[in-house]
Structure formats: C-alpha cells, structure tokens
C-alpha cells in the first residue's frame, strides 16, 4: 500500500492523540506553575477518571452526565488526598524523595484500581451516537471532536485562572519565589493543595473524554502520564499554550512515525523526542518561564 495515502488518516488520529496529550500535559503544567513539583501520578488521574465513570455508569447505573460529574469530583478528592497524605508531609524533602513519593503514589493508585475495578480493559460509550464524519477518504469520529473541544475549553479556563484571577497569580508567585510568596501572605501549601485539585480535575476530564476512544486499563495511566509530561516539556515547560502545542506536535509526530517505522517502536518515538528536545532545546518550542538556559 502506498505510504502517502495513509498520511491524512494518520494526521487526524495524530491530532486526536495530540489533544489527549495536551490535556494531560495541562495537568502537569498546573501543578508546576504552583510548586515546581512534577507529579508522576498525573497519568493515574486520567485512568481513574475513565475507570470511575465506567463503574458509576455500568454498576450503579447513574445517567451518563451525572456519572461523569461524580467521577470528576471523586478524582479531585483523590488529588486533594494525594497532596494531604503524601506531598504535604514531604514539603521540605529533597527532590528525589518527592519524585519517589509521587511514583509510589502512582504505583498504589494503579494497582488499587486493578483491585477495585478488575484488570480487564474498559471503554465508555461515545458522547454522541452518530456515525463518523467522512471527508474524502478520511473518517473522523465525533468523539475526536469532543476531545479537541475539551482541550481548548480547558486551555481557555486555565488561561482565565492564571491571567485574569488573583488566585492564578498567587499560584505562580508561590512557584517562582516560594519564600517571597510566604512573606507576602500567600499560603503556599494552600496554593499547592488547590493546584493538585485542579490538575486532578483536568486529568479526570481527559480520562472521561478519551475512554470512549481507547480502552483504559489499570496500567495505561503511567504511559499516558509520561507522554503528557513529554508534551508539556516539548511545548515549553510551565506554559499552558506550550502544553497544547507540544501535545499536538507529539501526537502528530507519533502517529506519522507509524507510516515509516514498525509500529512496535511507536512508544519509543515519544521518548526519543524527549531526549532530543532535552538535549537541543530544554526550554521547549515556545520557551519556558521556569528554565533558563544556564541552569538546565
């Protein structure tokens, strides 16, 4: 088969993937803008969002919107708990310890969800039950459009939060200059606490939107989380627009790579991109407010 004929289809699926990575990346960025912490359990929020919605929908038989809303609330609660039980006690600990703690939390969340929800992969029904759009010989599922809409709505609301509200400014201050923020009366712990909630919420939204497209199982959170992080680094660490741009770039490159190299290497592509971007331009495509070229 001709490689070039498949490219448009790969491009559209790449954009869908990209929107997912962008959403997950936004979760990372939210926490990073408040605390310089990188939460490796972010991917688990995505997985939990899908899993809990599935559980509420199929086991408790709640209506779809209610189940989704409740799932988001539960995941936000888990995010708050993660901060209170793990991050807050370690607020003075050094970086490797925080890193290990979030990895441990990720391990716990994924294995516990295997215990609760079973190890079988799960899928939600699509939001709008209509046939895929056909444009030429490309088919676009309506759910992909939903994901795109979700990504841009999240970006927009985060933009409002960080550029139009005092709360966003306070979060940013507590990240860039913790001591200074403390001295001006901003409670840094509260900021990080809120950031964990917001980021868990974003993660669960991402999870609910993508579960109709892909099967979600208990172990899929880690990889999605890592790729979301790569997207955030690729676009420019700490920038909302960077996470969106990086997400789309990563999604498209990853999808297109399938046309040229064996599909087994697909997961390696993201990490290869990560190594390249960290080596040549650690600031990311759009530049990063947190990384100056001398320190990183």
């Amino acid at each position, binding site marked *: 088969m001709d490689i070039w004929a498949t490219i448009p289809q790969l491009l559209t699926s790449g954009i869908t993937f990209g929107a997912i990575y962008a959403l997950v990346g936004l979760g990372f960025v939210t926490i990073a803008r408040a605390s310089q912490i990188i939460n490796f359990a972010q991917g688990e929020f995505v997985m939990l969002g899908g899993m809990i919605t599935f559980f509420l929908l199929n086991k408790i038989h709640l209506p779809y919107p209610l189940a989704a809303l409740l799932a988001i609330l539960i995941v936000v609660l888990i995010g708050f708990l993660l901060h209170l039980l*793990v991050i807050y006690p370690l607020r003075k600990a050094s970086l490797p310890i925080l890193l290990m*703690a979030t990895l441990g939390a990720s391990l716990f969340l994924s294995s516990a969800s295997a215990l609760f929800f079973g190890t079988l992969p799960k899928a939600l029904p699509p939001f709008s039950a209509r046939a895929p759009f056909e444009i030429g010989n490309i088919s676009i599922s309506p759910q992909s459009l939903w994901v795109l809409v979700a990504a841009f709505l999240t970006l927009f609301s985060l933009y409002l939060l960080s550029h139009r509200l005092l709360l966003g400014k306070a979060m940013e201050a507590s990240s860039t200059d913790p001591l200074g923020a403390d001295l001006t009366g901003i409670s840094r712990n509260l900021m990080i606490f809120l950031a964990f909630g917001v980021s868990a919420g974003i993660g669960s939204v991402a999870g609910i939107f993508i579960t109709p497209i892909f099967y979600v199982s208990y172990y899929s959170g880690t990889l999605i989380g890592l790729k979301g992080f790569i997207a955030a680094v690729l676009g420019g660490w700490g920038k909302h627009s960077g996470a969106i741009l990086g997400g789309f770039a990563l999604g498209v490159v990853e999808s297109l790579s399938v046309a040229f190299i064996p599909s087994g290497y697909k997961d390696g592509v993201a990490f290869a991109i990560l190594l390249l971007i*960290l080596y040549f331009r650690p600031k990311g495509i759009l530049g990063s407010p947190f990384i100056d070229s001398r320190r990183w």
Partner: protein
Amino acid sequence: MVDQVHKEFRKRDLLYSGALWLLSLILPDPQLHYRREYQFRKRDLIYFLTIIALPMIWSDPHFHHIMVLAGIHAILALGLTLFLGYAGQISLGQAAFFGIGAYTMAILTTRCGVPSLPAFWASGLTASFFAYLIGRPILKLKGYFLALATLGFGEIFLVMVRESPGLTGGVIGIFDIPYFSLAGFIFDTYLKQYYLIWGILMGLALFSKNLIRSKMGRAFLAVASSEDGASAVGIDVSRIKLSVFVIGAAFAGLAGSLFASVMSTANPETFSLNLSVLIVMMVILGGMGNLYGPIAGAIFLTWLINGLSRYQEYSLPIYGVILILLLVFFPDGIGTRLRVRLIYLISYSGRKRRREKVEL
C-alpha cells in the same frame, strides 16, 4: 538533618532507647562521609564476618535464594549511591543498564559460547559504554529533567529489546543461560551463588569505599553541593558526573550479568521502570551519602517484596503504601533517622545531668 529533630524529649523515646542502642552497634553511620573514615574499622570486620557466617547459621535454601537476589540488588544500589547519594544526580535508568548487562551475558554465553568470566566483564563494559554514549548529552540536565531523561532511556531500551527478537528473544526473552562457572567450578546451588555474589559485592564495596575516601569522593560531594565552587578549584564537573554515571552503570551491568546467570533467564519485564524505582528507594531508605546504607536498604526491600508476595493481588497496593509511608517517616533514610534520635537521647541525658549539677 539536625533541624528536623524534635527539640523536646518525649516519654516514648525511652521505649526506643534500648533497641536503638543495640541497633547503633550495627547500623551504618548516617554521616559517614562527614566523618570520613580513612581507615577500615572494627565495624567493617563485623559486616564482613556476618556476611560469611550468615548462610551457615541459616541453612534454608529459600533464605539463600532471597539473599542472592538481595546481593544483586545491593550491587545495583551501590552503583546508584555513588551517583545519587554522593554526586547528587538522579537516575531512573539503572534498570536499563541492568538489562544491558543481563542481555550481554545471555547472548555471549548462549549464542557465542563465551565462558562466564569474560562475559561477566564484557557486560560491565557494555553497560558502561552505553552509559558513556547516553550520559554525554543528558548529564547537563538536572533534577526532574535528568530523572525524566534517564527514564526515557529506560523506556527506549525496553522498546528496543521487545522489537528485536532476533537478538534478544523479544518479549519472551532468553532461556537456559548457563550457571556462572569459574575454572570448571559451577555455581549451581543457592549457597554457592550466595558466596559468589556477596564476594563480588564486597569487592565492589571496597572499590567504592576507596573512591569515597580519596579525592574522587570529595569531588563527588563537591559537585553535589556546588558546581560553581567545584569548577573554580579545577574539578571538571561534567567529566566527574559522566564518570560516576559510567561507574554506576558498570556496577548495574555486572549485577545484570550475575542476575542472568543466577536466574538463567532474561526477559524485558524484569527491567521495567519498577526496578529503577526500587533501586532509588533502596538508596533513599539506606540514606544518602552513605555506602553501607543502600546495601542494608537492598536487603530490607528485597525481603519486604518477598514477604508481600504471599498476598498476591494485594501485594502491589500494600507495597505502594509502605513505600510512601517509609518516605514520609524516614525521608533521610531509616538508619539516619534512628541514629539521629539516638544521638539526641544520649546528648539529652548528658545535658540533663549537667543542668542538675548547676542547680545544686
């Protein structure tokens, strides 16, 4: 470290004191590198004799087997502690070097019929060669980004292994790797393997201790503390970092080859991110900047995992919870925290006596 100690003496400290005093005789010194021991002490001899005598006292093969695994983990942790505990850089890619060592051993012995010993050295060399290639670009990164880059390397390694079945056997891996043999002597029982691995571990620990107590160890600590200061006195910071990374990788490679020859199999599931996390945990719980701590941490965590494995599907969540709890309660290492507590107790009783004397 010191400022985290509770300022007030608490009643329940009395409960700890007896057990702590006993522990203090064998616990590694938490601030070993501060009071760098330039000579070998009695404590080193006690460790040495314990390692020799332990399998004779406990002649249970299961115990030997777990201790063999613990020894392999300890070699990994020893390599990482030079990089993480002393030079202050973080790596989540140790499992990949472990895997490279294991596959080198597996391929050389099963396909090429190379004897164990040359294959053993070759796996260390291969791992350090890859560490050199990967370390040159990524070691200019710091903190989370270094962690992420090494993690990325580990994932790429796994993808490579899975996707090249011709060389590595793909997902299934390589079987029937011959036992380690030395001049016709085959290490085929757990007891023999125990002595093989702990012997090699002691050799490597000696090597590390020599590094740590000389100018190289000081250079590591200088790089960890202030890179500007280090380069101002003529230390080539990037070269030191690269060298420690390569040494750590070589240790991991040697551990990998031992693992392959002990388990007689090598498959990609073993070398996942979980193993890297486990190794970092060993170093953190053993205490940073400490040579014996990570070995103790390796033994502790290996036994913990072994103990948990009987709870089957509950073992992973419990493991995660225990990891988090250990991190929250012992962020600077189990030994260190207990030791600090003990030092505080001793100094408290001293101060109390003095205070009473003054009042009289």
